[in-house]
């Protein structure tokens, strides 16, 4: 079950003709798929696409009504390969993932799909995780579209436009027998907006129809000589068909006065909103997009429609290409178009705009201004003052702030079961020295940040173990690889563990099993422990690891047992046995556990049942303020507080009421022999008669003793 429930939002997927949909971009996309009559959908979660997968998972009923098959794909390659259903049959299908990372994984299948071509519309929704807040390497999906010849749609950030492009995109795919990519940036995925809905469409040709009437065609399979023919077909048939369709259906848009303009701007669709704001700052547009200069908006960024570009540029002194990221594929393409036609319009782009990074309104404003100053200064006139925060940032008070505001790196949640794993690694590190640690993708990657500072590289999802394979050296310190359960099922079982078995790698492999794909929002995966009516869960990681040939496997069922965790790790690192040492460290993701358990506990208390609620605390007079515990924890609920005691300089540890009693701090204090400040308080709600009786008499004796000693002690302060 995912972190966020979309049970309410799913109802919006049923909206019919003429009704207004209001909500997040990613939901609008989901609705658009249903309006387009898809037969099957799939994909792999990851920001900014996770919510799309969550919505589909929650939308089982709606999907069933329409006969849509939804697959939680094992990885992006699986999802891409699923699109092969559209090769022979008139079935529309869509898959989604985070890009470019997902596209990297999927590219083998995509290349094969694009070569053979499709009959039914096939669409890949790529969540372009580029720019601020991105969690991956900064690259563009554009290159993948070009190299495999898949059309790339980049709609304006406007729900109506995005929905329209999805519907048209399927038609384009069918008209040109080519799979299509639809690119949405992070902010557009999480953007709240609205559009007027249409009825959902039930596919007329169903998956059952396909299975009952199987078809095959050798010319669609990528094998010589068909592959050569397919290449020619791509160039001679599919590309022209796509260009015709795009031009005819006006997928690209024109804004502003098109006549007699000296200059114009060509943009990727996704840049539109911020370009309008930038132009507004320069006095060249109002807030509603009433423009003083022409814009050619490429909602399709591949292929470039030569005739449209040529027509837009002809007669202008210069055009500016607004294209985020590098290399400047579109700028190069436009130059080629103009050169071939000998049109002498100057093309500006990366000369006035930065090669990399977010194109914010500020960046665009500066670029457009530089462009116009060079090529059309009159249009700028006497400029209205543009927003400028630089004088403010130069103030001494603000400069001083720069040294004060602490960084706030993301970290593990309160009670996270991964925290004790890294605390244990720290303890072992103190005994056996530092080791080379390959990290992976997932919440556990936060180990690379303070306070743990563990992990040297991360090579991709599920590739932590694989990235230690070079260090398969006898007699040296062993390498350590970390991988999450998500990465394990995504590919790590074979690429990492199987590989280590086959190559007899002695390294240590830690599989962090928290019962969900947690970093992406708590989706179920094969080893999830929860019962899921649509999927088969409870597939054991340990069994899979043993099945692939690992002899040394340790299953830890409670990661919070720091002592056991540490000892197991030490055993793995010092073992002389041959082959990989695999530790499967299992405990439920606390975020999900709390969501599951909290309502049950509250209900039980209300219902009068005996419930023991736990929380941790620190004795402030025992704590000396050294914070060694913090350096082994980083728990959000474990903080520091300043005491009202003139004799104390350093703030002491304190645990706030968000503590979920995972026990990490107590276990660490004990295992690392830190200090006796931590305690666990167990509060019994609705105690039994026996509980009460026992407590009453015990406390009577204890209070007597306490009074006795207090009476003898020299009173130094008001009690």
């Amino acid at each position: 079950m995912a972190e966020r429930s979309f049970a309410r939002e799913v109802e919006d997927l049923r909206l019919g003709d003429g009704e207004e949909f209001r909500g997040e971009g990613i939901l609008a996309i989901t609705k658009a798929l249903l309006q387009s009559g898809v037969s099957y959908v799939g994909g792999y979660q990851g920001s900014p696409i996770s919510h799309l997968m969550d919505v589909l998972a929650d939308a089982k009923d709606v999907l069933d009504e329409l006969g849509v098959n939804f697959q939680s794909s094992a990885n992006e390659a699986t999802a891409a390969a699923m699109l092969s259903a559209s090769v022979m049959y008139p079935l529309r299908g869509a898959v989604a993932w985070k890009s470019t990372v997902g596209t990297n994984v999927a590219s083998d299948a995509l290349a094969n799909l694009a070569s053979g071509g499709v009959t039914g519309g096939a669409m890949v929704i790529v969540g372009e995780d580029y720019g601020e807040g991105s969690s991956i390497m900064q690259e563009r999906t554009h290159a993948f579209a070009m190299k495999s010849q898949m059309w790339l749609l980049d709609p304006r950030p406007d729900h109506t436009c995005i929905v329209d492009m999805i519907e048209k995109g399927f038609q384009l795919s069918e008209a040109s027998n080519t799979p299509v990519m639809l690119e949405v940036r992070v902010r557009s995925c999480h953007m709240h907006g609205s559009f007027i809905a249409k009825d959902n469409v039930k596919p007329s040709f169903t998956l059952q129809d396909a299975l009952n009437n199987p078809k095959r065609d050798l010319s669609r399979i990528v094998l010589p000589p068909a592959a050569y023919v397919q290449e020619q077909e791509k160039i001679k048939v599919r590309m022209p068909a796509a260009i015709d369709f795009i031009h005819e259906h006006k997928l690209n848009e024109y804004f502003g006065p098109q006549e007699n303009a000296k200059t114009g701007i060509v943009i990727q669709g996704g840049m539109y909103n911020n370009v309008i704001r930038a132009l507004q700052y320069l006095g060249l547009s109002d807030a509603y997009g009433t423009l003083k200069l022409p814009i050619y908006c490429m909602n399709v960024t591949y292929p470039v429609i030569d005739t449209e570009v040529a027509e837009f540029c002809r007669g202008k002194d210069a055009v500016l290409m607004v294209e985020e990221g590098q290399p400047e594929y579109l700028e190069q393409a436009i130059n080629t178009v103009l050169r071939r036609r000998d049109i002498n319009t100057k093309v500006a782009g990366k000369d006035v705009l930065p090669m990399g990074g977010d194109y914010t309104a500020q960046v665009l404003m500066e670029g457009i201004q530089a462009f116009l100053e060079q090529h059309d200064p009159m249009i700028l006139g006497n400029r209205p003052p543009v927003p400028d925060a630089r004088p403010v940032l130069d103030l001494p008070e603000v400069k001083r702030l720069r040294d004060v505001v602490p960084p706030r790196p993301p970290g593990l949640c309160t009670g996270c079961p991964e925290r004790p794993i890294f605390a244990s690694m720290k303890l072992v590190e103190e005994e056996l020295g530092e080791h080379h640690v390959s990290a992976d993708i997932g919440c556990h990657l936060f180990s690379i940040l303070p306070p743990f500072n563990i992990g040297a590289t991360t090579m991709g999802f599920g590739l932590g173990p694989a990235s230690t394979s070079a260090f398969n050296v006898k007699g040296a310190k062993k390498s350590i690889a970390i991988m999450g359960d998500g990465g394990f099922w995504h590919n790590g079982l074979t690429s990492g563990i199987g590989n280590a078995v086959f190559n007899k790698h002695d390294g240590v492999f830690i599989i962090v099993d928290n019962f969900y794909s947690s970093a992406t929002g708590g989706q179920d995966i094969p080893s999830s422990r929860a019962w899921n009516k649509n999927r088969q869960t409870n597939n054991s990681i340990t069994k899979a690891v043993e099945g692939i040939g690992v002899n040394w496997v340790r299953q830890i069922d409670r990661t919070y047992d720091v002592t056991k965790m540490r000892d197991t790790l030490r055993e793995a690192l010092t073992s002389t046995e041959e082959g990989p040492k695999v530790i499967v460290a299992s405990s439920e993701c606390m975020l999900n556990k709390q969501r599951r358990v909290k309502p049950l506990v509250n209900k039980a208390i209300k219902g009068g049942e005996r419930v023991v609620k736990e929380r941790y605390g620190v004795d402030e007079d025992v704590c000396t303020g050294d914070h060694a515990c913090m350096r082994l924890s980083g728990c959000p609920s474990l903080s520091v507080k300043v005491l009202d005691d003139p004799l104390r300089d350093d703030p002491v540890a304190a645990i706030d009421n968000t503590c979920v009693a995972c026990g990490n701090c107590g276990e660490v204090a004990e295992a690392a022999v830190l200090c006796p400040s931590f305690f666990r308080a167990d509060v019994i709600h609705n105690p039994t008669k026996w509980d009460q009786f026992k407590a009453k008499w015990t406390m009577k004796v204890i209070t007597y003793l306490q009074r006795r000693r207090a009476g003898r002690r020299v009173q130094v302060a008001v009690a």
Partner: protein
Amino acid sequence: MMKDDTIHLPLAAVGPATERPISIAIVAMGGQGGGVLTDWIVKLAEDQNWVAQSTSVPGVAQRTGATIYYVEMMPPLDGRKPILAQMPTPGDVDVVIASEFMEAGRSILRGIVTPKRTTLIASNHRSLSVTEKIAPGEGIADNSAVTGAIGVVAKREIVFNMEELAVRNGSVISSAMFGALAASGALPFAREAYLDIIRKSGKGVEGSIRTFEAAMRHVEPDDTEGGPAATELPAQAAPSSEMAAASPPNLGPSAPIETPAESSFDGDPRLKPLLARIQSLPVEARAMADAGLRKVVDYQDVAYGAEYLDLLDGLARDDAAAGGGAHAFAFTTNAAKYLANAMCYDDVIRVADLKTRMQRRDRIEKDMGLRDGQVMQTTEFMHPRMEEVNGLLPAGLGRWIEARPKLFAWLDKRVSKGRRVKTYSLPWFAALYIMGGMRFLRRRSLRHQGEVAHRDQWLATAQRLLNQNYALAVEVLQFQRLVKGYSDTHARGMSKFDKVMSTVTLLETRDDAADWARRLRDAAVKDGSEKQLDGTIATIRTFV
């Protein structure tokens, strides 16, 4: 040439930078309700038939990192929707709402709070970042830097502890921020419209409304005028009492230690003669000596208190002889503080004593919000080692065992293990109680001998330096701050102490020795890995 032309063109601007949407940036930490607040603001605008758009970039910030949500809103024009930007532009944001004080500081650094435009609504409570927590001492960021910056960059500021206000009213911070936004008058919507949104949210409505209204009242205490009381706001931004408690003590160079008031409690007759002796100390040092004396007596007994005063008297005499009057007797004051701390070292007896006191259970019961009819037990996580036990033994016996590593190891095997101690069960309480009562053993113990040797050496160094460099002598007294904690932590503290002491003696003849001593101490306090300290020492070694 051409460019120059344009600047002087006798042209009006091609157009005014027409009316822009109202823009609101919400800076929050993951899981702080920034998303809920964003949704509320969007619905608020939509209910008034405005067009509203929100975006956010959760990314990896979803887990406790800093996150920014951004909303723009504007009414449609003749059926045309405005085109709304997807991210805030520095210098062009109308309202910034910060759910935490350092995040308010971060928003200023992003340039989205500017004097011509921005109403800054910020909660001044702190949620410490991990880097502030892991310093092995005081590492908390300085709030005054944020307060100072807000004063010069915000057009208008609404700053108070919204977290506390929300908790007090049984809700979460987003309701308080929503109330502050309503009261700010930054959006042209009536209060009723805001309340409508909360009512429709359907979850914890009562608490949210209570919090919303409390926040509104806080911003505009006198509601009769209707408009927001803008001019009064800066005054209200003064730190609340919670803030004062959370802000770090001033630990500047020669420690102008805040002078605590002398406790007026002197009820115990056994304490009186000792308290009287304090009056012979310089007036500046009396309050600290009073606190120190009480701590020492509470730790051990009256005789130990007398020993404290004997030592302190000697130090004060040296101070006076060294012209301490010109330094406000900083040496005596610091001695009063750090000597008390040095004498009250942490040992098993003290831990057991503190854990079995009545006030301790009272405090925990209060913290846990224990109600009648509920039963509470606590479990301690203890891991005593042979070192601690041996330290308690009479010095001769302790040393005898220490000299026999095999025996020591054999005993350690029996002693050293993690023990879960149920404090309020009779057997465990009795054990702790007895241990807490073993103070009579303390002053003859092996540990005590070691502590006294350390103390004497430290004080001797400070006294020796007093005549030669007053400031340095004060710094040396403050080095005691590095010694703290239990077992390994304590050993590490001692090694840090030794490092700084030996380094200081290398440069004691230099005029800037005190500055270096302070740098050494700061490095040791701020960095757990000791890299910073070793770096500072390496620097010093390049010139001595």
